Every structure is written in C-alpha cells, then in structure tokens.
C-alpha cells in the first residue's frame, strides 16, 4: 500500500511539473496580450487541479499555497477582481515555490520556509483587500501584426566571368526560390526555363526572374547569400501583390521572353502596372477571407485543445528508428544497383518507387527527432522578465516562431548562448526608461526573438531597439588590444566582428564600452560547435540584431564526397567554397604550406600526407577550397566524387584522439566513409 501511495505521489509530482510549466508560460504570455477570459480560465483550472490532487495526496504545503490563489482567480474569472501585474508577480512566485516543494518533497530548508510562509501571507492579504490596483491592470491591446503579404519581385543575376568553374549550381538557387512562391525564369538563350530543363541549362550564366512571394527582399537576398560575391545580383520590387497569380500577366511575360534581355526594369514595371488594380482588389478580398479564417480558427482551437496532439517517445526508440531507416536506405541503394545491372525494367521500376518511398520515410523519421523551439522559450521569457525588473527597465519581450522545429541536441546547446545574448540585450542594449524618452524613444524597450526556417537552416534573430554598438569605441579597443593595425582601413563590419574574438573581451573593457562583447567569443565557439554561425548588425542609437544560423539537425549533413587513395571521405558542404584542379604550376609555387590560388596565399593541407595514407598520388589531383573560421584553406584530395546527403554517426571514444574525423557515414554500397572536420584538421596539422 505504501508503495502505491508513493507511486501516486511520484506521478503527481510529474503531472504537476507539467501543469506548472504550462501555468508559467501562460502567465508570461500575458505580458503582451490582452487577458482574455480563456486565459484566466486556464490559469484557474491549472491552479485548481494542482490544489485538488495535491491535497488528496497529502501535500499540505502545496494545498496551502494554492488554496488562496485559486480563490483569487475564481474572483478574477467571475469579474469581481481584475487581473493585475501584482497578481501576475505573486503567481510567478508561487510557481517558484511549487517547484521547490515538488523537488524536495515538501521538505523545505529554513530559507525556503521563510519564503514560503511570507508568500502564503501575501497571497492571503492580496485575497482580502481585493481591489488593489485597478490602474495597473495589464489589458494591453496588441496591434494587429500584418503577416507578410505577397509581393512580386524582379531579379536579375549574372555570373562573374572570372570563375566559370564555380561550384554553385543555379538549380539550388532556383530550388530555394521555388519554395518561396511562384516564379518565371528567363535565360539569355531566350527560353523560359522550367525546373526539369535546368540540369542542361546550368552553364547559362545570365538570368532574369520574376518571383511572387510573401518573403521580403532581405530573405530573397539571403538565398543568394553564399554566391553573392560571384554573381551580380539585382533584386527590386516590381509590384505589390501576387502578379503571377494572374493568368494574363503570365501570358504577357511569355510574349516578351524572346527579347527580355533587351528590356530594362522600367519596361517590365510597365507590364506589371497594368495589373495594379486587379491586384489591389485581390488584396482586399484576401484580407476579408483572412479575417474569416481567424474567426474559424478561434472556434476550432477550443475543440483542438481537447484532443491529444503529441505523444511522448523515449529518444532511444527514435534513435533505433533512425538506425533502421538508414539501414533501409542503404539497402535500397544496393537494390537499385542490382536492378539496373539485371536490366529488368519492371524490377527497375519497383526499385525506383521503393527508393522514393524510403527517402520519404527517412525524411519523415528525421522530422520526428525534431522538437519545437518553444519548449525553451519560457526560460528566456522568465530571464528577461526577472532581469528587467531587477534593472528597473521596461522591456517588452516578444518571441516569434516558437513552433519552428530543430534537433533536440541543438536546442540544448543553444540555450546558453541565447541566454547570454539576451542578457546582453537587456543589460547593455536597452537603455533606462528616462534615457530612452530623452532620445525620443518609447520608455518601453523592445527585444524580439525570431526563429524561422530557411531551406536547410534555422535562423534565430535577436533584435533590440536599444543603444546599438559604437563602432568607433570598438575600433579604439581593437587597436589598443592589438587586434587590428592602427594604419589600416577596415569596414564597419570587420570592426564589429572584433567583439567575437577571444582577445577582445575582458573585465576591463566591460566598463569602458557599452559592455557588449563580454564572452561573446564563447558564444561564437558554442554555436560553431553545432555547425552554426553568428553575425551581428547594429546601428548606433537604434539597436542591434544578432543572427544565428544553424543546421536543422546535427545528424544529417550535406557533404562533398572526395577520394584519397581509394578511400572515401566527406567534407561538409557548408564549408566548401570552390573546387580547383591542382596543376603543376601551383605545386611549384607552393612554399611553406601556402599556395597561390586566384592571386591569394592560401594555406594548404595535403590530406594524403597528413593522414599518412602512403601510396603514390595520381598525376591529376583536385583542391577543395574550404572555409575555416573567416579564412580559406585548401585541402588536396585525389578526386571529387560529388555531393552526398549523409547521416553522421559518431565514431565513439576509441577515436577520441582522431577528432579531425567528426564521424562516419554509410555510403550507398554499404561501406563507411569518414566525415572530416575542417576546423580540427587545420588546428591538428598546422602544428608541425
């Protein structure tokens, strides 16, 4: 019997923890939205459940602390009391105490006991003199956010003539743009190109495109991000609205396809303008339907909250599923090979269908291991809430895109860096209310965290409207710390990025400058460990934006398969920038581990030598130019096989000293290829 009571208590504690977390996130969400009856109802129900089951199982203190709180919310619910900031704070305190109570099975230390008794008294007081503070009630109306409406853009892009063997393939750009909306592409040859023809057309280097999408120009530019140095790109907004949604407009563009390269932006704009009125009408109609949709959603949401949307599965099970799926994909590749060898067209057909199914299964299985980012957001909200209170600052913290999913392991490793950046934004970014008002800003500062997907990446932006970073200050400190030369000119970007250098931050500089840069090198290191990158943009007096770019998952990487002495290796594609042929000329120029590539001195690593693979190198070898932090390095390999999406598997602690290999992956023929860690290769093999 004793056992079953203990079991009940255990499951009560677990259940209550969930309820408390839910309660906390609901309470924190009240910051920026009007308190609806639904929200109050939910709070009341949560408190009621905790109290009810707590009392039943003899959690006396849980009962005591929730009893009065329940009454208070009952009054708020029936309209006899209005929700106030004071009530919110006291509720949050209750949550903290409840967490301690559950953790320690109600055994409190003297310090916590005082806290507990004090809280009970204050809740009781609150309850007795009910109409405390009506004017601080948090009924703030949220402005309607205009969710990205569709616009039509005109994009011109032309490859630089100097690198015709550039690796980047327009098809990838188009694939990404295709995800954003609908488009028409024109190539110089005069044909408008469809997806399927692109393979043959990839040599064509000059394009014009009309794209209708609800993304903004910045997101389109980001698609071109990694090729922007190699291409001349121009993007301009043609017209608001979904121009390509109109059949006649599409038809018009078809007509001009033959001479589009003689036309300029103005000519195309003329065509677009013809449809201005149609588009305006459409926008109006859409607005109305959107409102209907919101209404309908509101009605269904109550029904949805009662059905089970998710189930809990242990990570072991998911890992096992992943292994089975990877194995299946490998087997499928073998099947494909055999089917083709046999020449039996029926068998080939089946193998292909099976292949496409197993790829879908793999993609699906991988999305299972992804979890919404939202689970950690409560912690961030709480931190911002507590810290701004402590500093007497007023901060409105908004998180957008909490549903964005990514690998659990990434989320775990992201919490610290994000905490750090947020703390910086609250502490040093956002000014005191009086300073803000004096500078013509609203007293309430704003910190926004945006999370969204962009192709195979997750982007996290942390935006504040604080004082920004003073580039001049950074420059001075950079010179003082000998991070930059006095007499050289640097771009503002280069200067700002100094704050990510290990030598930049120290206790002393914190007080000298705005304080930014405290340990940002650690943030950068943590993020690069999960194959992400961080950048910052800032405007003095207006605020700063930190942008973190991450892979969707740690276990799948896009790789470049290369061969050295009959062995296969994978280089992560995100680090690869170009592939060159190693000719004799470059070999002769090579000196002191440097070679001249495109007029630049680049350190090189002959992997055949560095890995002590022996054998004789073939006459014709290739160089993979890879990014190492902000530098480029050249890796010499025998040959490049091609691109490969791979499932990264750790090699385990037996190879802990070979950390320039980040893992293994299973190729189509069932053999294992090793995945290289470019950063570690550079540090390991530069020593000698």
């Amino acid at each position, binding site marked *: 019997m004793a056992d079953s009571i203990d079991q009940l208590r255990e499951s009560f504690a677990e259940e209550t923890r969930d309820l408390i977390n839910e309660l906390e996130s609901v309470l924190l969400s009240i910051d920026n939205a009007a308190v609806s009856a639904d929200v109050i109802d939910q709070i009341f129900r949560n408190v009621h459940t905790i109290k009810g089951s707590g009392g039943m199982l003899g959690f006396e203190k849980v009962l005591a602390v929730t009893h009065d709180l329940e009454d208070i919310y009952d009054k708020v619910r029936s309209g006899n009391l209005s929700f106030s900031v004071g009530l919110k704070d006291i509720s949050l305190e209750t949550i903290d105490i409840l967490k301690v109570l559950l953790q320690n099975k109600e055994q409190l230390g003297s310090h916590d006991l005082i806290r507990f008794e004090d809280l009970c008294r204050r809740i009781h007081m609150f309850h007795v003199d009910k109409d405390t503070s009506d004017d601080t009630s948090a009924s703030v109306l949220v402005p309607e956010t205009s969710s990205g409406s569709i616009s039509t853009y005109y994009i011109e892009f032309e490859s630089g003539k100097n690198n015709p063997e550039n690796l980047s393939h327009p098809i990838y750009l188009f694939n990404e743009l295709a995800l954003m909306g609908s488009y028409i592409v024109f190539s110089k040859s005069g044909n408008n190109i469809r997806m399927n023809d692109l393979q043959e057309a990839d040599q064509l280097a000059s394009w014009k495109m009309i794209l209708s999408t609800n993304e903004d120009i910045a997101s389109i530019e980001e698609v071109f991000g990694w090729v922007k140095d190699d291409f001349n790109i121009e993007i301009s907004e043609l017209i608001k609205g979904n121009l390509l949604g109109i059949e006649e407009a599409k038809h018009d563009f078809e007509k001009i396809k033959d001479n589009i390269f003689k036309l300029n932006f103005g000519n195309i704009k003329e065509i677009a303008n013809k449809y201005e009125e149609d588009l305006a009408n459409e926008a109006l109609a859409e607005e109305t339907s959107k409102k209907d949709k919101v209404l309908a959603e509101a009605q269904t949401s109550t029904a949805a909250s009662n059905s089970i949307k998710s189930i809990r599965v242990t990570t072991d099970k998911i890992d096992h599923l992943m*292994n089975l799926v990877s*194995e299946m994909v490998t087997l499928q590749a073998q099947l494909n090979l055999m089917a083709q060898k046999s020449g039996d067209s029926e068998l080939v057909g089946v193998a292909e269908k099976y292949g496409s199914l197993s790829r879908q299964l793999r993609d699906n299985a991988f999305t299972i291991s992804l979890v919404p980012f939202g689970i950690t957001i409560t912690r961030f909200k709480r931190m911002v809430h507590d810290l701004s209170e402590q500093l007497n600052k007023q901060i409105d913290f908004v998180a957008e895109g909490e549903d964005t999913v990514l690998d659990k392991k990434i989320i775990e490793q992201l919490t610290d860096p994000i905490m750090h950046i947020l703390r910086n934004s609250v502490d040093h970014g956002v000014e005191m209310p009086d300073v803000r008002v004096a500078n013509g800003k609203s007293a309430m500062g704003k910190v926004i965290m945006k999370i969204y997907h962009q192709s195979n990446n997750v982007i996290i932006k942390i935006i504040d409207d604080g004082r920004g970073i003073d580039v001049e200050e950074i420059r001075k400190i950079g010179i003082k710390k000998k991070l930059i030369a006095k007499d050289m000119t640097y771009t503002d970007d280069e200067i700002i990025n100094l704050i990510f250098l290990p030598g930049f931050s120290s206790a002393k500089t914190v007080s000298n400058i705005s304080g930014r840069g405290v340990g940002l090198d650690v943030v950068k290191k943590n993020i690069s460990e999960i194959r992400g990158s961080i950048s910052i943009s800032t405007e003095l007096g207006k605020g700063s934006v930190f942008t973190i770019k991450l892979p969707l998952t740690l276990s799948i990487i896009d790789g470049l398969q290369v061969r050295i002495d009959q062995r296969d290796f994978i280089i992560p594609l995100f680090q690869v920038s170009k592939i060159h042929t190693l000719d004799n000329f470059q070999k002769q120029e090579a000196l002191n581990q440097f070679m001249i590539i495109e007029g630049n001195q680049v350190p090189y690593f002959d992997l055949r030598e560095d*890995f002590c693979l022996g054998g004789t190198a073939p006459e014709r070898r290739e160089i993979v130019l890879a990014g190492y932090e902000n530098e480029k390095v050249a890796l010499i390999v025998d040959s490049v096989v091609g691109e490969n999406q791979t499932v990264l598997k750790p090699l*385990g602690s*037996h*190879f802990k000293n070979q950390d320039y*290999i980040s*893992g*293994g992956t299973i190729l189509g023929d069932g053999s*294992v290829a090793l995945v290289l860690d470019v950063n570690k290769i550079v540090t390991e093999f530069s020593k000698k």
Partner: protein
Amino acid sequence: MEELFQTYLTFSLGKENFAINVEHVEKILESQPVTEVPKAPEYMLGVFNLRGEVIPLVDTRIKFGMEKTVITTSTCILVITINNDGETLKLGAMVDSVNEVVKYDNADIISLPTVGKQNKAEFLHGVLKLAEKFVLLVNADKIFSVDEIIELRADNFELEGK
C-alpha cells in the same frame, strides 16, 4: 549473490586461449570490409558498418601484445558491448577463431596473484585450466576501454605450479 556458474565464449589468438563472458557478446561475424581511420593507434583497425551502425574494430592480437592478425577463413569479429564508467560502448574485436561456449563453476577459476613484476591482474577475471591448457578470462570492460596495448600471455602469470 554471485552466480555459481558463468557462461564464457572461448576464442584463440595464435596459440593462446582466451574466454569472454557471453554477457558481452552480441554477435559473431565473419570478417568485414573496414574503413581505416587515419593516424589511429595500430590496434584500432578502423570502423565497419553493422546494419546501419558505425562500429569501431579492434585487432585483438595487437591489443594483447601479439603480431597483427592475418585474416584467414576462421577469422571472426566478436561484436561486444562494454561498460566504461557508466557509458556503454559497442565494438568489434577481431580474433583468429571462435571455439566454444562453456559453463564453468566459479570454484574452478584460479584467481591471479595481485602482485607481480608485471601486474595485469586487473585485466583478467581469472584463469581456467581446460584440457591441460590455460584459458585467460578477460575483463572486457577494463581491457577494451584503456588506450594501451596490454600484453596477455598465459606464461606471463607463473601459473605452472597450480
């Protein structure tokens, strides 16, 4: 309470005979295509694909201080799991041949002197005498989790008198 009988799998490396507790053994495979890991210790042969998992492979002969394995038709890979400070590791151990599964009475196990000129006792659970041959019972958790070569030969242990 410790069980009175333990089940062991015996295997040979050259003339030497060893045994490993069957609890560790997950599978026995014939030799597999292996991918070498550059600059790894000599006894780490590389990694191989075990049904979608990437598993490290140890040349047990080198690991136990002998010449490296020459692969023959009787060469086998024991897929074993070991416990290293609470972490479970899976690895392949290449051996010259796998012999038999046997049950021993714990009382038959000759324990080793814990002092000696080259004390390797911690890597063994004990020694058995079977058909006038000594069989070393390896402590798989220990021996496969250290990064060294551990010389293990029956005549290293002054067993003749027992």
